[in-house]
């Protein structure tokens, strides 16, 4: 009796599972900033309306997204670590890389600004002052695009923060939002992309303390995962998404996205 009831329950559950094979979809391996800021929620329905293709978004750090895509667990990659993306194409994992849009990184910190960097336009100078003051700094520490950028900035500033890991330099090993939550919790500085920062809801007394340095430029690129390496990749539908993203309507949709009245991403497809 119990077993028959259980069997019936299982059958019901399995039959009720969403019809996964019915609709036409692609899997997009993307970074947390594009998903958490709300950009993808805004533009993907427009693509679906135009093409009939649904986009399933897996939002993880750029490092994990590249790894997943390398395993063939995604049709299209939308991330922000140009050097790693070029390597991804060069080793045959991806077909081609295209610029899609950009925004910039900012350094955020507590209102009392213990390292006195507020208003600094030279990000390297700001980082040096944080290190000199041994003020807490929360790093992603997760091999994401933002983490790679942060490490390259520290290297340019001539500082090895990892030597101070656990002291004033704190690697959270988490996504952007989780790292911002941690930074706010322990009054630490952090590097974040502007889109995530503007959309972030738990800012407390935090504000942007350094911005505007051209080193803080943040380029997003899109890549079709190589169907020659993974035969199940939906190359046609994936390419259709990339073409749309780079087309006038796709670029306009990106430019039209606003959060709290501010534009978060600036389309720049096809420009050198």
């Amino acid at each position, binding site marked *: *009796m*119990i*077993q028959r009831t*259980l*069997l019936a*329950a*299982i059958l019901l*559950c*399995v039959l*009720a*599972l*969403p019809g*996964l094979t019915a609709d036409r979809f692609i*899997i997009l391996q993307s970074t*947390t900033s594009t998903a*958490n800021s709300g950009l993808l*929620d805004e533009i993907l329905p427009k693509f679906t309306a135009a093409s009939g293709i649904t986009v*399933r*978004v*897996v*939002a993880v750090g750029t490092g994990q997204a590249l790894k*997943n895509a*390398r*395993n*063939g*667990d995604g049709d299209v990659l939308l991330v922000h670590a140009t050097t790693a993306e070029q390597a991804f194409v060069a080793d045959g994992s991806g077909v081609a890389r295209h610029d899609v849009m950009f925004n910039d990184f900012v350094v955020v910190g507590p209102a009392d600004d213990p390292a006195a960097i507020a208003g600094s336009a030279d990000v390297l100078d700001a980082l040096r002052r944080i290190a000199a003051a041994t003020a807490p700094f929360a790093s992603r520490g997760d091999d994401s695009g933002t983490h790679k950028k942060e490490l390259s900035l520290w290297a340019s500033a001539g500082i090895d923060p990892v030597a101070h890991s656990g002291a004033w330099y704190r690697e959270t090993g*988490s*996504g*952007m*939002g*989780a790292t*911002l*939550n941690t930074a706010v919790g322990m009054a630490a500085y952090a590097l974040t992309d502007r889109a995530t920062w503007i*959309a*972030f*809801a*738990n*800012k407390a007394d935090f504000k942007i303390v350094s911005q505007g340095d051209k080193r803080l430029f943040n380029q997003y690129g899109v890549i079709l995962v190589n169907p020659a390496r*993974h035969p*199940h990749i939906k190359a046609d539908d994936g390419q259709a998404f990339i073409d749309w993203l780079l087309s006038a309507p796709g670029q306009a949709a990106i430019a039209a996205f606003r959060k709290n009245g501010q534009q978060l991403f600036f389309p720049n497809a096809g420009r050198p």
Partner: protein
Amino acid sequence: MQEALEALGLAGRLIVSMDGDVLEIVALSLQVSLTAVAVSCLIGLPLGALLAMTRFRGRNVLIVLNNALMGLPPVVVGLAIYLAISRAGPFGVFGLLYTPTAMIIAQTVLVLPIVTALARQTIEDLNAEYDDYLRSLGLGIGGRLRTLLWDGRTGLITAAIAGMGRAIAEVGAVIIVGGNIDHVTRVMTTAIALETSKGELALAMALGIILMAISLALNAATHALRGDAMRRMYA
């Protein structure tokens, strides 16, 4: 405090308004976890009973192993299943990654050891009491197993409840193999993780309150069922 009150209010509003997205997430959570628990019971209850009723070399090793597996970290299970069903993995051809089926598999791996261990415990006590009697009736191993499982059903429900508690609450495994895809593999716990990472702490907590309310309702329902069964048993 402000945040907690806001969360309570928000939870109330979400429940009252029957928000479509929230309903979908709740439904998928229940579907995935209930299926995982049902599969675990189908395998784990007879397995636990067999472990309780038989004596063989290596039995103690199996029991210790079974008990140890109850403490499997969900994130490790998620990672192992990911490696197995990734397109680059041995079962990649089935295309299971980022589907509810993958989530059910992961949660079954987590729940099965719990159901098996608790079933073994329950049936072991019953077996000590009734084994001679059942044998004297000339019942074979299959007949004894069925009888003991039926007689131990109230204790076995506790095993299922413990398994359900583990399944519905875990986030580490389903976020890796499900991918937290909106409208496809987003469940209560992954939605809570997402809202937390967006800094929407009140909304995340509101979802947490709903999750706890569902858990409470499920437990109340099984408790009532069990009370009913007990009364009929001793009537």
